[in-house]
Protein backbone atom coordinates (compact mmCIF):
# COMPACT_ATOMS: atom_id res chain seq x y z
CA UNK A 1 0.00 0.00 0.00
CA UNK A 2 2.83 2.32 0.99
CA UNK A 3 4.60 1.56 -2.30
CA UNK A 4 1.44 2.38 -4.19
CA UNK A 5 1.08 5.77 -2.43
CA UNK A 6 4.77 6.60 -3.11
CA UNK A 7 4.32 5.65 -6.74
CA UNK A 8 1.27 7.95 -6.99
CA UNK A 9 3.17 10.86 -5.40
CA UNK A 10 6.16 10.42 -7.71
CA UNK A 11 3.86 10.07 -10.71
CA UNK A 12 1.98 13.24 -9.72
CA UNK A 13 5.20 15.20 -9.30
CA UNK A 14 6.48 14.06 -12.69
CA UNK A 15 3.17 14.95 -14.36
CA UNK A 16 3.05 18.46 -12.81
CA UNK A 17 6.66 19.14 -13.87
CA UNK A 18 5.77 18.04 -17.39
CA UNK A 19 2.59 20.19 -17.42
CA UNK A 20 4.48 23.30 -16.27
CA UNK A 21 7.04 22.73 -18.99
CA UNK A 22 4.36 22.43 -21.66
CA UNK A 23 2.50 25.57 -20.55
CA UNK A 24 5.72 27.59 -20.48
CA UNK A 25 6.47 26.38 -23.97
CA UNK A 26 3.00 27.47 -25.08
CA UNK A 27 3.54 30.93 -23.60
CA UNK A 28 6.79 31.26 -25.45
CA UNK A 29 5.06 30.24 -28.66
CA UNK A 30 2.39 32.88 -27.99
CA UNK A 31 4.97 35.60 -27.57
CA UNK A 32 6.54 34.56 -30.87
CA UNK A 33 3.20 35.03 -32.61
CA UNK A 34 2.94 38.61 -31.36
CA UNK A 35 6.47 40.03 -31.25
CA UNK A 36 6.98 43.57 -29.90
CA UNK A 37 6.83 46.19 -32.65
CA UNK A 38 10.25 47.10 -33.94
CA UNK A 39 10.49 50.84 -33.42
CA UNK A 40 13.12 53.39 -32.52
CA UNK A 41 11.61 53.56 -29.03
CA UNK A 42 12.05 49.81 -28.53
CA UNK A 43 15.64 49.99 -29.73
CA UNK A 44 16.41 52.91 -27.44
CA UNK A 45 14.83 50.99 -24.56
CA UNK A 46 17.30 48.17 -25.19
CA UNK A 47 20.27 50.54 -25.44
CA UNK A 48 19.80 53.61 -23.23
CA UNK A 49 23.30 54.93 -23.90
CA UNK A 50 22.98 55.00 -27.67
CA UNK A 51 25.36 57.16 -29.69
CA UNK A 52 24.28 59.73 -32.27
CA UNK A 53 25.53 57.58 -35.14
CA UNK A 54 23.84 54.47 -33.83
CA UNK A 55 20.59 56.35 -33.41
CA UNK A 56 20.79 57.60 -36.98
CA UNK A 57 21.66 54.15 -38.32
CA UNK A 58 18.79 52.55 -36.44
CA UNK A 59 16.40 55.25 -37.61
CA UNK A 60 17.36 54.79 -41.25
CA UNK A 61 17.15 51.03 -41.01
CA UNK A 62 13.68 51.20 -39.47
CA UNK A 63 12.55 53.78 -41.97
CA UNK A 64 13.53 51.57 -44.89
CA UNK A 65 11.87 48.57 -43.29
CA UNK A 66 8.62 50.45 -42.78
CA UNK A 67 8.68 51.91 -46.27
CA UNK A 68 9.01 48.38 -47.63
CA UNK A 69 6.04 47.26 -45.54
CA UNK A 70 3.97 50.18 -46.81
CA UNK A 71 4.99 49.41 -50.37
CA UNK A 72 3.85 45.85 -49.79
CA UNK A 73 0.38 46.94 -48.64
CA UNK A 74 0.11 49.39 -51.54
CA UNK A 75 1.07 46.70 -54.04
CA UNK A 76 -1.44 44.27 -52.53
CA UNK A 77 -4.24 46.83 -52.74
CA UNK A 78 -3.49 47.76 -56.35
CA UNK A 79 -3.15 44.14 -57.43
CA UNK A 80 -6.50 43.33 -55.90
CA UNK A 81 -8.04 46.36 -57.59
CA UNK A 82 -6.65 45.22 -60.92
CA UNK A 83 -8.13 41.77 -60.40
CA UNK A 84 -11.61 43.01 -59.64
CA UNK A 85 -11.59 45.61 -62.44
CA UNK A 86 -12.24 42.91 -65.06
CA UNK A 87 -15.03 41.45 -62.95
CA UNK A 88 -16.62 44.89 -62.62
CA UNK A 89 -16.50 45.23 -66.41
CA UNK A 90 -18.34 41.93 -66.75
CA UNK A 91 -20.92 43.06 -64.20
CA UNK A 92 -21.47 46.27 -66.18
CA UNK A 93 -22.25 44.28 -69.29
CA UNK A 94 -24.62 42.08 -67.30
CA UNK A 95 -26.41 45.14 -65.95
CA UNK A 96 -26.64 46.69 -69.40
CA UNK A 97 -28.29 43.57 -70.80
CA UNK A 98 -30.70 43.30 -67.91
CA UNK A 99 -31.69 46.96 -68.15
CA UNK A 100 -32.43 46.65 -71.86
CA UNK A 101 -34.62 43.70 -71.06
CA UNK A 102 -36.49 45.10 -68.08
CA UNK A 103 -36.62 48.87 -68.61
CA UNK A 104 -38.03 50.52 -71.70
CA UNK A 105 -36.98 54.08 -70.90
CA UNK A 106 -33.47 54.52 -72.29
CA UNK A 107 -32.82 57.59 -70.16
CA UNK A 108 -33.51 55.59 -67.02
CA UNK A 109 -31.26 52.82 -68.29
CA UNK A 110 -28.45 55.31 -68.69
CA UNK A 111 -28.98 56.81 -65.23
CA UNK A 112 -28.81 53.40 -63.56
CA UNK A 113 -25.68 52.50 -65.50
CA UNK A 114 -24.11 55.81 -64.53
CA UNK A 115 -24.97 55.36 -60.84
CA UNK A 116 -23.41 51.89 -60.83
CA UNK A 117 -20.28 53.28 -62.49
CA UNK A 118 -20.09 56.16 -60.06
CA UNK A 119 -20.44 53.80 -57.09
CA UNK A 120 -17.50 51.70 -58.29
CA UNK A 121 -15.46 54.78 -59.12
CA UNK A 122 -16.11 56.31 -55.69
CA UNK A 123 -15.21 53.08 -53.93
CA UNK A 124 -11.93 53.05 -55.82
CA UNK A 125 -11.18 56.70 -55.14
CA UNK A 126 -12.01 56.57 -51.44
CA UNK A 127 -10.06 53.35 -50.84
CA UNK A 128 -6.94 54.93 -52.30
CA UNK A 129 -7.56 58.13 -50.39
CA UNK A 130 -7.81 56.27 -47.08
CA UNK A 131 -4.72 54.25 -47.92
CA UNK A 132 -2.77 57.47 -48.53
CA UNK A 133 -4.06 59.07 -45.35
CA UNK A 134 -3.07 56.08 -43.25
CA UNK A 135 0.39 56.01 -44.81
CA UNK A 136 0.73 59.67 -43.88
CA UNK A 137 -0.38 59.02 -40.33
CA UNK A 138 2.12 56.18 -40.03
CA UNK A 139 4.94 58.45 -41.12
CA UNK A 140 3.88 61.11 -38.63
CA UNK A 141 3.80 58.51 -35.88
CA UNK A 142 7.37 57.56 -36.75
CA UNK A 143 8.41 61.18 -36.31
CA UNK A 144 6.62 61.29 -32.96
CA UNK A 145 8.50 58.13 -31.98
CA UNK A 146 11.79 59.69 -32.98
CA UNK A 147 11.14 62.78 -30.86
CA UNK A 148 9.93 60.63 -27.95
CA UNK A 149 13.04 58.47 -28.15
CA UNK A 150 15.20 61.59 -27.93
CA UNK A 151 13.27 62.70 -24.84
CA UNK A 152 13.71 59.28 -23.33
CA UNK A 153 17.46 59.32 -23.93
CA UNK A 154 17.52 62.65 -22.11
CA UNK A 155 15.89 61.07 -19.07
CA UNK A 156 12.35 62.40 -19.56
CA UNK A 157 9.29 60.43 -18.51
CA UNK A 158 7.60 59.47 -21.76
CA UNK A 159 5.27 56.72 -20.49
CA UNK A 160 2.08 58.57 -21.48
CA UNK A 161 3.37 59.29 -24.99
CA UNK A 162 4.52 55.69 -25.40
CA UNK A 163 1.05 54.44 -24.49
CA UNK A 164 -0.55 56.91 -26.89
CA UNK A 165 1.82 55.74 -29.65
CA UNK A 166 0.86 52.10 -29.07
CA UNK A 167 -2.85 53.03 -29.24
CA UNK A 168 -2.38 55.10 -32.38
CA UNK A 169 -0.43 52.31 -34.07
CA UNK A 170 -3.15 49.79 -33.27
CA UNK A 171 -5.80 52.09 -34.71
CA UNK A 172 -3.79 52.71 -37.88
CA UNK A 173 -3.23 48.98 -38.37
CA UNK A 174 -6.89 48.20 -37.82
CA UNK A 175 -7.96 50.88 -40.32
CA UNK A 176 -5.36 49.58 -42.81
CA UNK A 177 -6.88 46.13 -42.56
CA UNK A 178 -10.30 47.61 -43.29
CA UNK A 179 -8.92 49.39 -46.35
CA UNK A 180 -7.37 46.14 -47.59
CA UNK A 181 -10.71 44.36 -47.17
CA UNK A 182 -12.51 47.16 -48.99
CA UNK A 183 -10.04 47.03 -51.88
CA UNK A 184 -11.06 43.44 -52.51
CA UNK A 185 -14.77 44.07 -52.14
CA UNK A 186 -16.84 43.62 -55.25
CA UNK A 187 -20.27 45.23 -55.60
CA UNK A 188 -22.59 43.27 -57.81
CA UNK A 189 -25.12 45.23 -59.84
CA UNK A 190 -28.70 45.26 -58.54
CA UNK A 191 -31.09 42.60 -59.80
CA UNK A 192 -33.63 44.99 -61.29
CA UNK A 193 -36.88 43.33 -62.29
CA UNK A 194 -38.97 46.30 -63.38
CA UNK A 195 -38.96 50.04 -63.81
CA UNK A 196 -40.77 50.39 -60.49
CA UNK A 197 -38.15 48.71 -58.32
CA UNK A 198 -35.14 50.20 -60.15
CA UNK A 199 -34.72 53.16 -57.83
CA UNK A 200 -35.09 51.06 -54.67
CA UNK A 201 -32.64 48.40 -55.84
CA UNK A 202 -29.90 50.77 -56.95
CA UNK A 203 -30.58 52.85 -53.82
CA UNK A 204 -29.92 49.79 -51.68
CA UNK A 205 -26.58 49.26 -53.37
CA UNK A 206 -25.70 52.93 -52.85
CA UNK A 207 -26.52 52.58 -49.13
CA UNK A 208 -24.40 49.45 -48.78
CA UNK A 209 -21.34 51.11 -50.32
CA UNK A 210 -21.96 54.22 -48.23
CA UNK A 211 -22.10 52.18 -45.01
CA UNK A 212 -18.91 50.28 -45.86
CA UNK A 213 -16.99 53.45 -46.67
CA UNK A 214 -18.39 55.27 -43.65
CA UNK A 215 -16.99 52.58 -41.34
CA UNK A 216 -13.52 53.07 -42.82
CA UNK A 217 -13.84 56.84 -42.64
CA UNK A 218 -14.62 56.58 -38.94
CA UNK A 219 -11.69 54.20 -38.36
CA UNK A 220 -9.34 56.60 -40.17
CA UNK A 221 -10.66 59.52 -38.12
CA UNK A 222 -10.10 57.54 -34.94
CA UNK A 223 -6.53 56.80 -36.01
CA UNK A 224 -5.95 60.48 -36.77
CA UNK A 225 -7.33 61.49 -33.37
CA UNK A 226 -5.05 58.97 -31.66
CA UNK A 227 -2.02 60.39 -33.48
CA UNK A 228 -3.10 63.91 -32.50
CA UNK A 229 -3.39 62.79 -28.88
CA UNK A 230 0.17 61.46 -29.00
CA UNK A 231 1.35 64.87 -30.30
CA UNK A 232 -0.56 66.67 -27.52
CA UNK A 233 1.09 64.49 -24.88
CA UNK A 234 4.48 64.94 -26.51
CA UNK A 235 4.06 68.72 -26.38
CA UNK A 236 3.57 68.51 -22.63
CA UNK A 237 7.18 67.40 -22.14
CA UNK A 238 9.16 70.46 -21.17
CA UNK A 239 11.59 71.65 -23.85
CA UNK A 240 10.77 68.73 -26.13
CA UNK A 241 12.05 70.39 -29.31
CA UNK A 242 15.49 71.08 -27.87
CA UNK A 243 16.14 67.48 -26.79
CA UNK A 244 18.64 65.69 -29.00
CA UNK A 245 20.77 62.58 -28.90
CA UNK A 246 24.03 63.53 -27.15
CA UNK A 247 26.86 63.57 -29.69
CA UNK A 248 30.44 64.65 -30.07
CA UNK A 249 29.77 67.51 -32.43
CA UNK A 250 26.15 68.61 -32.10
CA UNK A 251 26.65 71.99 -33.72
CA UNK A 252 27.59 70.65 -37.13
CA UNK A 253 25.73 67.36 -37.29
CA UNK A 254 22.04 67.15 -38.10
CA UNK A 255 20.48 64.20 -36.40
CA UNK A 256 17.18 62.52 -37.11
Amino acid at each position, binding site marked *: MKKLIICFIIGGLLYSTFAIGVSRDDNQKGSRVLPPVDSILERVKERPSISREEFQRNWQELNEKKERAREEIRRWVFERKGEIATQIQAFREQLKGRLKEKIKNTEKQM*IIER*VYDRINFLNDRMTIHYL*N*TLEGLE*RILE*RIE*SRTAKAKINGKDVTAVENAIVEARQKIESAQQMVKDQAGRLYQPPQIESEKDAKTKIGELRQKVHNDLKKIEEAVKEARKAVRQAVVLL*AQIHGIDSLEVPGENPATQSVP
Partner: protein
Amino acid sequence: MNENNIFTSLSSGFIKRGVILVSLLGILILLLIGLLWYWQAQVTKEKIHQAPPSSSIPEFPQRTRGEQDSLSDINNALDAIERSEIDLEREFQIIDRELNSL
Protein backbone atom coordinates in the same frame (compact mmCIF):
# COMPACT_ATOMS: atom_id res chain seq x y z
CA MET B 1 -44.84 87.33 -122.68
CA ASN B 2 -41.52 85.83 -123.54
CA GLU B 3 -39.79 88.24 -121.19
CA ASN B 4 -42.20 87.23 -118.50
CA ASN B 5 -41.46 83.56 -119.10
CA ILE B 6 -37.71 84.16 -118.99
CA PHE B 7 -38.11 86.16 -115.79
CA THR B 8 -40.23 83.50 -114.07
CA SER B 9 -37.92 80.70 -115.18
CA LEU B 10 -34.90 82.69 -113.99
CA SER B 11 -36.49 83.56 -110.65
CA SER B 12 -37.65 79.97 -110.11
CA GLY B 13 -34.11 78.84 -110.90
CA PHE B 14 -32.74 81.25 -108.31
CA ILE B 15 -35.32 80.14 -105.77
CA LYS B 16 -34.48 76.48 -106.40
CA ARG B 17 -30.77 77.17 -105.93
CA GLY B 18 -31.51 79.16 -102.80
CA VAL B 19 -33.62 76.37 -101.38
CA ILE B 20 -30.91 73.84 -102.15
CA LEU B 21 -28.25 76.07 -100.59
CA VAL B 22 -30.32 76.73 -97.46
CA SER B 23 -31.17 73.06 -97.03
CA LEU B 24 -27.52 72.08 -97.58
CA LEU B 25 -26.47 74.61 -94.97
CA GLY B 26 -29.17 73.32 -92.64
CA ILE B 27 -27.99 69.73 -93.08
CA LEU B 28 -24.42 70.84 -92.48
CA ILE B 29 -25.36 72.67 -89.27
CA LEU B 30 -27.40 69.69 -88.10
CA LEU B 31 -24.47 67.39 -88.82
CA LEU B 32 -22.14 69.64 -86.86
CA ILE B 33 -24.54 69.76 -83.91
CA GLY B 34 -24.88 66.00 -84.07
CA LEU B 35 -21.12 65.53 -84.12
CA LEU B 36 -20.66 67.92 -81.21
CA TRP B 37 -23.35 66.16 -79.22
CA TYR B 38 -21.81 62.75 -79.92
CA TRP B 39 -18.32 63.97 -78.98
CA GLN B 40 -19.59 65.45 -75.72
CA ALA B 41 -21.49 62.25 -74.86
CA GLN B 42 -18.34 60.22 -75.46
CA VAL B 43 -16.26 62.52 -73.28
CA THR B 44 -18.76 62.33 -70.39
CA LYS B 45 -18.99 58.58 -70.79
CA GLU B 46 -15.22 58.27 -70.63
CA LYS B 47 -15.09 60.46 -67.55
CA ILE B 48 -17.61 58.29 -65.77
CA HIS B 49 -16.10 54.98 -66.75
CA GLN B 50 -12.50 55.90 -66.28
CA ALA B 51 -10.83 54.79 -63.07
CA PRO B 52 -8.76 57.53 -61.48
CA PRO B 53 -5.49 57.69 -63.40
CA SER B 54 -2.52 56.69 -61.35
CA SER B 55 -1.00 60.14 -61.80
CA SER B 56 -4.01 61.68 -60.06
CA ILE B 57 -3.37 59.60 -56.99
CA PRO B 58 -0.65 61.49 -55.24
CA GLU B 59 1.48 59.57 -52.86
CA PHE B 60 0.46 61.62 -49.88
CA PRO B 61 2.05 62.83 -47.77
CA GLN B 62 5.49 62.96 -49.26
CA ARG B 63 8.26 61.00 -47.67
CA THR B 64 9.89 63.01 -45.00
CA ARG B 65 13.38 63.04 -43.68
CA GLY B 66 13.98 61.94 -40.15
CA GLU B 67 15.17 65.31 -38.94
CA GLN B 68 11.71 66.80 -39.48
CA ASP B 69 10.57 65.68 -36.07
CA SER B 70 10.07 69.02 -34.37
CA LEU B 71 6.62 69.62 -32.91
CA SER B 72 5.76 72.25 -35.50
CA ASP B 73 6.76 69.89 -38.36
CA ILE B 74 4.65 67.11 -36.89
CA ASN B 75 1.68 69.43 -36.34
CA ASN B 76 1.96 70.82 -39.87
CA ALA B 77 1.99 67.34 -41.36
CA LEU B 78 -1.05 66.36 -39.32
CA ASP B 79 -2.89 69.54 -40.33
CA ALA B 80 -2.12 68.81 -43.98
CA ILE B 81 -3.69 65.37 -43.62
CA GLU B 82 -6.81 66.89 -42.07
CA ARG B 83 -7.07 69.46 -44.85
CA SER B 84 -6.80 66.82 -47.56
CA GLU B 85 -9.70 64.77 -46.22
CA ILE B 86 -12.41 64.04 -48.76
CA ASP B 87 -15.96 64.63 -47.60
CA LEU B 88 -17.70 61.31 -48.17
CA GLU B 89 -21.21 62.76 -47.84
CA ARG B 90 -20.53 65.35 -50.52
CA GLU B 91 -19.26 62.65 -52.86
CA PHE B 92 -22.45 60.69 -52.37
CA GLN B 93 -24.57 63.77 -53.07
CA ILE B 94 -23.66 63.46 -56.76
CA ILE B 95 -24.95 59.89 -56.79
CA ASP B 96 -28.07 60.96 -54.90
CA ARG B 97 -28.85 63.65 -57.45
CA GLU B 98 -28.74 61.04 -60.18
CA LEU B 99 -30.91 58.70 -58.12
CA ASN B 100 -33.48 61.39 -57.54
CA SER B 101 -33.84 61.94 -61.26
CA LEU B 102 -34.98 58.34 -61.68
